[in-house]
C-alpha cells in the first residue's frame, strides 16, 4: 500500500576529538563518555530492538570522523569501562544512602540496573567497540550512515581557501571508508553550513546528497514549488534536502517542545552537585564537582523545586508524545500529498545528542515512534534520503544561498565578537599549508612526518566546536586553549618542514597526543579530490 508521504529521521552525531593520554583522567573526555552512556548506546539498543522485532524503520545517521576515531581508540575504550565501573560502584554507595528513602531509592535501583546493562552491551556485545553496533545495523539496511566534515570545520568561513574544504572532505571520506568499509553516499555538512561551490566539491567525492535548514531550500533560486518537502538538485549535482520546520519545532521549541515536559528527567540536577558523600566525591575531577550522570529529579515545572524522577511515568509520557508527533506527521503528509504530484518527504534532522543526553527519554520516544509508524497507520512510511532519490530522481534544479542551521540562520554563531579572532590565523595557516603542498609535492621521511602532523593540527584547529563554545561560553578556556595549541603546533611543524631541522622529540610528543587520522596525507590540502 502506497504511503501518502515519507518520513526521514536524520541524527547527526558529533563530538570534537578530545583525548589526553598525558593525564590519567581529563574532565572534557567526559563529554564522550556521557554521550556514549546516554545517547549512542541507548540509540543502538533501540535500533537493535526494532530490528529484532521486525519493525520497519529507517534512520540516517552521520557519525563524524572524530567521533568514530574516539569510539575505536583503545585508550578511550578502556577509560569508558572505568567510567562505567566507577558509577556502578558509586551506585552501591547511593543504594546504602537511600536505604530509608522511599522516593529516591527506586531511582537509584533503576540506575543500577541500567548501568549494568550498559556495561554488558558495551563490553560483552560490542567488545568495547561501539562502531560494531552501528556497522551491523548499517549492513542490515536499517541505518544509513553518512559522513560530515573531517573535524567538523565550518565550510562557509573556511572557504576563503578552498583547499581547507577539500581537506575536510577528503579526510572525512577516507575515515568513513576505513572504519565502515564503504564510501558515504551522503553528507551532513557541519552545521549545515553551505556556500555555493560546495555542491561542486561534494560531487567530486561522489556524494549524492546533503541537508540544509529550511530557508536554504525556500530561498534557493529559482524557488521550488514543493517547498522543503522535496529535495532540490544543486547545479553541481548533489541533491539538497531541507529541514521540515514543523517537526523540528515540536521537539526543539522551549514552549511547545516535548523535552520540557514536567515528567521528564531534569538535566541540571545531578548527584555530583547534590550529594556530598565520599562515594560521590570519588567521581570528581581533581576535587572539581562535575555532572556524574546520576540525575534523580524530574523537571516538575518552571520552579527550582524538583520532584524525584519516575522512569515509568516518563516512559508513558514519551509514548504519548510519540503518538502526538506521528499524528501530526500523518496530517501533514495527507495535506502535502493533496498538493503535490508525488509523495512528500518530511526530513527531521536533529543532533543525536538531543536524544538521551539532553532529553533523556528521547531514545524511548524514537522507539515508540517507529513502532507506531509501522503498525498503527499507513499514511507515513520511514525512508532514507538515498532511497527517496532512487525512487524520485527527477528534481527541480536550484542553487541554495549561503546559509546554516545555526541560530540566526547564517554564520553569526561562529563569527562574532567572541571568536572572530581565530579566522585570520586559520586562513593564514591554510594558505601556508597550500604553499607547502605546492613546494613539497613528494615529501619523504621526517619531512613527510612533519607535514602530515601539521595537516592534522590544522584540521583540529578548524573544528567549529571551538568557535561554538567560545560563543556559548560553556568551556571557553578549553576551547581557546585547543585552538591556540593546534595553531602553535602547526606553525612549528611547518617551520620544521621548511627549514629541514627536525626536533624529533617534539614531533613524537605531538604525534602521540594529536593522533587522529592514522592514514593522513598532507596532500589533501589541494584543490580537487585527493582520496
Amino acid at each position, binding site marked *: 500500500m502506497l504511503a501518502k508521504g515519507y518520513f526521514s529521521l536524520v541524527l547527526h552525531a558529533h563530538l570534537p576529538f578530545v583525548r589526553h593520554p598525558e593525564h590519567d583522567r581529563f574532565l572534557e573526555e567526559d563529554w564522550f563518555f556521557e554521550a556514549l552512556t546516554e545517547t549512542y548506546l541507548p540509540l543502538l539498543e533501540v535500533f537493535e530492538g526494532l530490528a529484532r522485532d521486525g519493525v520497519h524503520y529507517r534512520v540516517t545517521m552521520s557519525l563524524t570522523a572524530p567521533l568514530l576515531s574516539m569510539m575505536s581508540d583503545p585508550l578511550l575504550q578502556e577509560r569508558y569501562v572505568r567510567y562505567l565501573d566507577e558509577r556502578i560502584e558509586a551506585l552501591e554507595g547511593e543504594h546504602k544512602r537511600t536505604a530509608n528513602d522511599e522516593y529516591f531509592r527506586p531511582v537509584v535501583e533503576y540506575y543500577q540496573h541500567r548501568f549494568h546493562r550498559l556495561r554488558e552491551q558495551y563490553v560483552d556485545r560490542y567488545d568495547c567497540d561501539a562502531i560494531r553496533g552501528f556497522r551491523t545495523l548499517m549492513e542490515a539496511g536499517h541505518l544509513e550512515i553518512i559522513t560530515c566534515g573531517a573535524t567538523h570545520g565550518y565550510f562557509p568561513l573556511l572557504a576563503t581557501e578552498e583547499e581547507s574544504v577539500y581537506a575536510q572532505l577528503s579526510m572525512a571520506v577516507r575515515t568513513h571508508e576505513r572504519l565502515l568499509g564503504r564510501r558515504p553516499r551522503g553528507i551532513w555538512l557541519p552545521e549545515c553550513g553551505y556556500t555555493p561551490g560546495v555542491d561542486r566539491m561534494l560531487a567530486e567525492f561522489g556524494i549524492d546528497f546533503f541537508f540544509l535548514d529550511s530557508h536554504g531550500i525556500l530561498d534557493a533560486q529559482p524557488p521550488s514549488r514543493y517547498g522543503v518537502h522535496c529535495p532540490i538538485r544543486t547545479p553541481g549535482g548533489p541533491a539538497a534536502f531541507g529541514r521540515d520546520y514543523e517537526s523540528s519545532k515540536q521537539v526543539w521549541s522551549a514552549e511547545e517542545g516535548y523535552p520540557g515536559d514536567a515528567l521528564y528527567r531534569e*538535566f541540571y540536577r545531578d548527584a555530583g552537585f547534590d550529594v556530598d558523600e565520599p562515594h560521590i566525591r570519588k567521581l570528581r575531577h581533581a576535587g572539581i564537582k562535575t555532572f556524574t550522570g546520576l540525575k534523580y529529579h524530574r523537571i516538575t515545572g518552571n520552579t*527550582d523545586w524538583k520532584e524525584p524522577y519516575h522512569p515509568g511515568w516518563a516512559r508513558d509520557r514519551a509514548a504519548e508524545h510519540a503518538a502526538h508527533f506521528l499524528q501530526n506527521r500523518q496530517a501533514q503528509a495527507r495535506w502535502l500529498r493533496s498538493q503535490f504530484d508525488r509523495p512528500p518527504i518530511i526530513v527531521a534532522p536533529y543532533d543525536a545528542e538531543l536524544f538521551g543526553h539532553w532529553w533523556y527519554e528521547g531514545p524511548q520516544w524514537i522507539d515508540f515512534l517507529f513502532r507506531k509508524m509501522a503498525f498503527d497507520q499507513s499514511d507515513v512510511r520511514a525512508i532514507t534520503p538515498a532511497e527517496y532519490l532512487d525512487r524520485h530522481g527527477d528534481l527541480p534544479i536550484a542553487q541554495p544561498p*549561503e546559509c546554516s542551521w545555526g*541560530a540566526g540562520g547564517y554564520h553569526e554563531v561562529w563569527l*562574532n565578537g567572541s571568536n572572530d579572532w581565530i579566522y585570520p590565523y586559520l586562513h593564514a595557516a591554510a594558505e601556508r599549508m597550500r604553499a607547502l603542498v605546492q613546494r613539497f609535492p613528494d615529501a619523504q621521511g621526517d619531512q613527510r612526518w612533519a607535514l602530515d602532523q601539521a595537516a592534522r593540527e590544522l584540521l583540529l584547529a578548524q573544528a567549529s566546536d571551538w568557535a561554538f563554545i567560545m560563543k556559548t561560553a560553556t568551556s571557553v578556556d578549553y576551547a581557546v586553549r585547543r585552538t591556540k595549541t593546534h595553531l602553535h603546533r602547526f606553525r612549528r611543524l611547518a617551520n620544521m618542514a621548511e627549514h629541514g631541522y627536525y626536533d624529533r622529540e617534539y614531533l613524537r610528543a605531538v604525534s602521540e597526543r594529536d593522533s587522529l587520522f592514522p592514514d593522513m596525507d598532507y596532500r589533501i590540502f589541494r584543490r580537487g579530490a585527493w582520496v
Partner: protein
Amino acid sequence: MKNKTVAELRELAKKLGIAGYSKLRKEELLTAIAAARRPAAPKKPPGTTAPARKPATKTAAGAARPGAEKARPATVPAIPGVADEEQRIEGSKFAVAPLGEAAAARAYAEDVDENIEDLGTLAHAPRLSLLAQKPGVLYAYWRLPHGQFARQPGLRLRLGLVHDRAFHPQAEVALNGDQGGWYFHVNEDWHPEAVYLQLGYYDDSGAFIVAIDRGIVRLPRLFAASRYGVNWAVTSGEFSGIREDSGALGNQVPGGWPQGPSSYEHVSSHLMSSRGPRARDRN
C-alpha cells in the same frame, strides 16, 4: 563561609542583591554569593598586537570564564547570552555543571615543551579578507607585516561599491594595529559582487592611496524573505548592537570623508614595501 547558618547567608545574599535568596538552599546560597563577589576583570584594550582573544562581550556568560562578568545566581534558569533554545540544547553536550554553577578555574599542566601563546606573526604578505556574517553584516579583517602599522600612520580601511568603473566609498574606519577586524553594515540593495575593500591612507592632497584591495568572494543573500515570514536582513539599528558586542576599535570617521579622486580602471593588488608606501600606479 561554610560555617555560617542559612539565615546568615540569606542576610548576606540580600545585601549583595541576589535575587530570590529566600528560596535558595545553603549550597545554592554559597554558590550565588561566591559568584556575586567575584571581581570583574579589567577590560583589555582592543587591538593589542598580542594574539589575545577579544575582551568579554556584553553577553558573555560568567560561569565558565574566570574573571569574566558576574555569574548570575543559581535561581535564574537561563544561560546568559544564549537566547536561542536550540543553541542551548546543542551546547548542553559540552556542559559539565549546572547553570550558574561556577566551573572552577583549572590549571592545564604543560607537558610538552611549547608556548601556545606564541602564534607567530600572521603576515608575510599583507592581506585583506572579507567574511559574511549574515545578510546585512560583513566582517573585514586585515593582516599587515609586523610593525607596518607603526611605520605608516593614518592607515584606514574603506568599504565601498564598485560600479561605473569607480569605487564609491560607503564606510571607513581607522586601523589600530597590524591586525584587526571590523564589522560593516551592508545594504539589502547592494550587489554582492560590487562590494570592495580598500586599505590605504590619505596623502597630503587628500587623495586616498590604496595599498591593498580586495573584492568580495561571496555574500549570503542580503534579503531573504522565507515562507515563514522571517526577514533576515539586519537593520542599521540592530547592527549597532552587533558592533557594540564585538568591542569598539579604531576611530570611525563620522559622516563624510574627503572625496579624493579614485579611479578604478581595474582591480589590482599592491604590496606595501618596507621602505615606505608608494603612490599607486595610474594607468
